[in-house]
């Protein structure tokens, strides 16, 4: 089936099978930040923005994205750059495996709620599982990042 989407702000036309998952389609386009983690729609590693909203690309058919806009971390380098650098400097990136999904969802959080409380951060990122269980580090990193923006 032919689909037309905007991937990282670039129009793209492609043929996909009806059961091709968005994650596989995106990786075939070279978006390797989108990674397969749990395969049970639980871990948030495969998070992308679909029309600006964070979704699990492992659970969306690529054909369903037809006519929509997709952003992966590859397309948000500028927006993510400050935050990712800050998180790394804070040592909050741990092993790094969950970072692409974590960063994508953090960006979605900042867009939706630029000044979240700690509880709002925890709630928004509850769907991003960290294999190192580095949640406190992530929270500290985000808090410090947001505080640094205010300073």
């Amino acid at each position, binding site marked *: *089936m032919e689909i037309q989407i905007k991937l990282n702000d670039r129009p793209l036309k492609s043929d996909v099978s*009806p*059961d091709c*998952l968005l994650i596989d389609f995106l990786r075939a386009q070279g978006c390797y930040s989108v990674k397969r983690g749990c*395969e*049970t*729609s*639980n871990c*948030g590693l495969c*998070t992308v923005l*679909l029309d600006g*909203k*964070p*979704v*699990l690309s*492992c*659970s*969306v*058919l690529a*054909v*369903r994205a037809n006519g929509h806009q997709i952003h992966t971390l590859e397309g948000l380098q500028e927006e993510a750059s400050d935050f990712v650098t800050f998180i790394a400097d804070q040592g909050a990136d741990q092993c790094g495996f969950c970072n692409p999904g974590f960063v994508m*969802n953090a960006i*979605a959080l900042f867009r939706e709620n630029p000044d979240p409380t700690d509880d709002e951060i925890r*709630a*928004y*990122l*509850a*769907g*991003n599982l960290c294999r190192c269980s580095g949640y406190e580090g992530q929270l500290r990193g985000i808090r410090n990042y947001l505080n640094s923006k205010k300073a």
Partner: protein
Amino acid sequence: MITIKNYIRASSLQEAYDLNQSKQNRVLGGMLWMKMSNANVNTVIDLSDLGLNTITETEHDFSIGAMVSLRQLELDEGLNRYSENAIQTSVRDIVGVQFRNLATVGGSIFGRFGFSDVLTMFLALDCDVELFQGGRISLEQFCAMPKDSDILVRLILKKTPGHFVYSSMRNSKTDFPVIACGVSFFDNTYHFSIGARPGKAILLRDTTGLLSDGITEQSADAAAKWVAAQTPTESNLRGSAAYRTHLIEVLVKRNLMEIGGKMHGNPNQAE
């Protein structure tokens, strides 16, 4: 792994219904549960173009389209004002924001899944469903029906004045509930909806008169014991039947005490 031969975006409910009469075809909700199955599906039917992704509010009710996401439920001010935030509470621990942006009300309700917080919540409310062929029936009636090939179009939540509380017990924050519990008071009746038993949610009404003199520690305790005794539970990996029965007693009492507080203008505790 699921395999799918064809994908069709239905252009009308009639088309979706006709396609859904074949047992080899499936209606797509959020696809979160379906994608983990091993089904070989001939045609998946997408309802995305049918305008079922909105919540509309009138003076008398809310109309919640089958393709409304759980995140929309969570953020809808009207729904949460009416339900005293019980609806938000019922969905906010379902996996994560990314999951709730995909999962649909229709998928949760039509599936009548035992673990469903959404079904448990809406059962405790004054709620009907609209089916394409079956018309409008109560959610309670729908919940008791065997699955068929009709199309769930929307939920109709009546704005019956009342008080509503929802709580659940989870082994970890974003896991399925071990037990889920909605308690409401409307039409002069207390309603108790218990889900994740682990079977599908059931609805009980207080027919005992235990609460007829109001909610106190003692009456809430007695009513909670009654609900727990009436509710069949089973064991699975998340918890034993006995543990679930105990949790029902705890959550029903807590929810009742909160309802009692709301009745007396104090949302945090009963009189």
